[in-house]
């Protein structure tokens, strides 16, 4: 936390709230001002590469050139109409929302269950299990593709409904990765919840399932929301597997369809509409985040601990 040490909090030796009166501006800065400063700097850092995407999206030539932030050829929305006219963007959008929405919900469900067990129960193979969960993710995906083809060729022969070129096949595959990093993330949060909570609940006669659903889940709501959002973003951007699975133009997801716009020599021709697509892709994520904000930021935990 070196960055924090250098921040005005310590410099000002900031007095605890309401003890001693301090110069007004200084106090404001120590309490709130530095927060805005950090946030604004971070936002600038975050946004400036995105400004180029915006510039390219509005540039009628649609070229990628970071020296010209302001399009010299004027501003146009031609790229937007071209995107919808030339590609199946709307379809990709809907496909992505469905797959990512479903997959992220299901995967937080699976990983929350597992995380609860890993955090609250003691059983043989627990730590080994946790570690293997991590290590399995380490194997390079580009090697696993051969095996994925092997599995799903059989699956497609037997059950075409969940095979190649179906969103369900892809969904199943994503469920394979549900336990990975998310379980680790959630386990960390379950670990921070005081044991006394479930112990007293057990004393009151609650079963393990009741403890999990009624006590634990509401308490980790912020992290469920965060994990859900991360899973959503992760799925929407997932590319390697979706590319293998979805080859019908109508069944593609955003990541796959958009990558197709940029491939090979087309990169320059399509960059303008690609930039539009990139910006539009961010919209569902922002909406999901807005929806989840109330779980992420709320007084839930405070109330729960008191109760």
């Amino acid at each position, binding site marked *: 936390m070196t960055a924090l040490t250098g921040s005005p909090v310590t410099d000002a030796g900031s007095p605890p709230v309401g003890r001693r009166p301090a110069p007004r501006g200084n106090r404001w800065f120590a309490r709130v001002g530095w927060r805005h400063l950090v946030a604004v700097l971070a936002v600038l850092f975050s946004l400036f590469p995105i400004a180029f995407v915006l510039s390219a999206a509005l540039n009628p030539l649609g070229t990628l050139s970071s020296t010209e932030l302001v399009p010299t050829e004027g501003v146009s929305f031609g790229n937007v109409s071209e995107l919808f006219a030339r590609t199946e963007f709307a379809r990709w959008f809907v496909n992505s929302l469905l797959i990512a929405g479903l997959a992220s919900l299901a995967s937080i469900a699976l990983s929350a269950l597992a995380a609860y067990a890993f955090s609250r129960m003691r059983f043989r193979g627990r730590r080994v299990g946790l570690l293997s969960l991590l290590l399995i993710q380490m194997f390079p995906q580009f090697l*696993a593709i051969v095996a994925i083809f092997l599995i799903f060729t059989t699956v497609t022969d037997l059950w075409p409904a969940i095979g190649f070129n179906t969103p369900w096949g892809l969904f199943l595959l994503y469920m394979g990765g549900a336990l990975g990093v998310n379980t680790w993330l959630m386990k960390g949060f379950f670990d921070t919840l005081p044991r006394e909570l479930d112990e007293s609940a057990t004393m009151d006669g609650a079963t393990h399932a009741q403890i999990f659903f009624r006590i634990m889940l509401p308490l980790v709501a912020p992290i469920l929301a965060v994990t859900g959002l991360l899973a959503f973003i992760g799925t929407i951007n997932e590319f390697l597997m979706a590319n293998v699975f979805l080859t019908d133009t109508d069944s593609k997801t955003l990541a796959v369809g958009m990558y197709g716009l940029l491939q090979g020599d087309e990169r320059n021709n399509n960059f303008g509409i690609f930039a539009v697509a990139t910006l539009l892709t961010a919209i569902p994520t922002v909406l999901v985040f807005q929806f989840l904000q109330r779980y992420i930021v709320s007084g839930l935990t405070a109330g729960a601990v008191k109760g």
Partner: protein
Amino acid sequence: MSTSPSGPGPAPQAPGREPVGSRPEKRRAARDHATTTMTGLAAKVVLLGLVAGIAIWAAFPLVEAEKWVGLALLAATTAGLFYLYLTRRHVPAKYLVPGTLFLVAFQVFPVLYTASTAFTNFGDGHRGSKQDAIVAIQTASVKQVPGSAEYALTVATKGDPATGPLVFLVTDPATGTVSVGDADGLRRLGPDEVTVAPGGKVTAADGFTVLNFGQASARSQEITELVVPTAGGALRSSGLSRAYEGTAVRAYDAGCDCIRDSETGRTWAADESTGSFVAADGERLAQGWKVGVGLRNFTRVLTDENISGPFLGTLIWNFAFAIGSTGGTFILGTLVALALHSPRMRGTNLYRVLLILPYAMPSFAMLLIWRDMFNTDFGLINNLFGLSVNWFGQEWSARAAVLLVQLWLGYPYMFLVATGALQAIPRELTEASSVDGASPWQSFRSVTMPLLLIALSPLLISSFAYNFNNFNAIYLTTEGGPFPADNPTNGATDLLITYTYRLAFGGQGAEFGFAAAISLFIFTIVAVVSAVSFRRTRKQEEVYA
């Protein structure tokens, strides 16, 4: 789809299977109060019903295809699930099994399969079986008999269009005569027996049903396999409307276990140790097959100078990269999360939305933009600061640039996670400490940070492990460069994974077996490091135990 969360098992838990390591006397008390909720029971019934339904649905194709092993596996899995969720024992398993089932099918199996290829020569030119290779060699050697005619072809049958035995009706373009051919040979038909359209296609023939394209294409495989022997070779179909007289110049001879070329008389003998057909002078046929090579791939990793030479340097940078990426994003993400974590802060909602935007955009697009920003002559960074640094052209600047890009891409993730973590820390704790007279910094150090670390340390370990193998971060930016002029195989920003990718796939065809062997080495390194750091988290984990 076995996502049953285990309904609330009716009360008394088997001793030692309690979810919480609580004290015995409490458990006894719990036993008396245990209740079964209706919703729990209903959920259990519905979900198990669903499992049964899916199992039955899945069983039919297995029966039809006579895949008895698969059927047994399905039955065992279903029975196992029913047992697990109807018994009161095995509580942890109730929570772990749903995710684990998917994990085993779609992650563990692929990994094991891939690992097993490390002991083979699996790769381009050696993907299939020996039989595949022989078929490929023979097919590739079919040549049109010099000077032979091109025939117009019509596919016909004597029986039902869908099942009757197939024949070829071929028209000689020079004479216009029509012959009928099947596996026994060619027989001429009289001109009055057939109706021939201009261009030579037969539209009707006495005693035969002519197949249209749709009907014929449904029996594509039979058509491809039908070879009509002739004096000079054999008539084969080329599509559905032409036939040609061709011979397979090369054929497999089981007697010598070799491929023989009938034109030149050359032979290529099968070499089972390398999985290829090799001539006496060392010439190798391109089409080979997959064979086991034992530990050869592993010894190659250890003995190949190209790999072992720069290994140490790459490994050190690899660690620096993983630690730098994880640490950088963690510090920045936490700092920003802390800054926004205050009831006095206004506009946090807007800040948060803007901050996660980088994470919401397809990373391959943003990596392109970053690459462009570091451009020596046209890039924003040099233009902005009036520099002319060749960022990706020098070792240390390239490394710094890669880490900066990683920071940009990854810190929104840490920011979100830290935000969630901070919310989960009861505010009473920090408030209590500030009432005790601690400065914000002190209360951060003594209360917030330790709790944050408990929540995030598992994540930091997994983030480290992820970044250790973060192929895309390097491959989409520097591609491992800059490279020393005299060594194009190992660059300054190469991770072990990008480096080995280049070795295994950059040459003449992909070498999956070799790549798998290297991956196993890397895997071992990551496993040891992770296991060691994981041991150290045990203390933290037990903080409340």
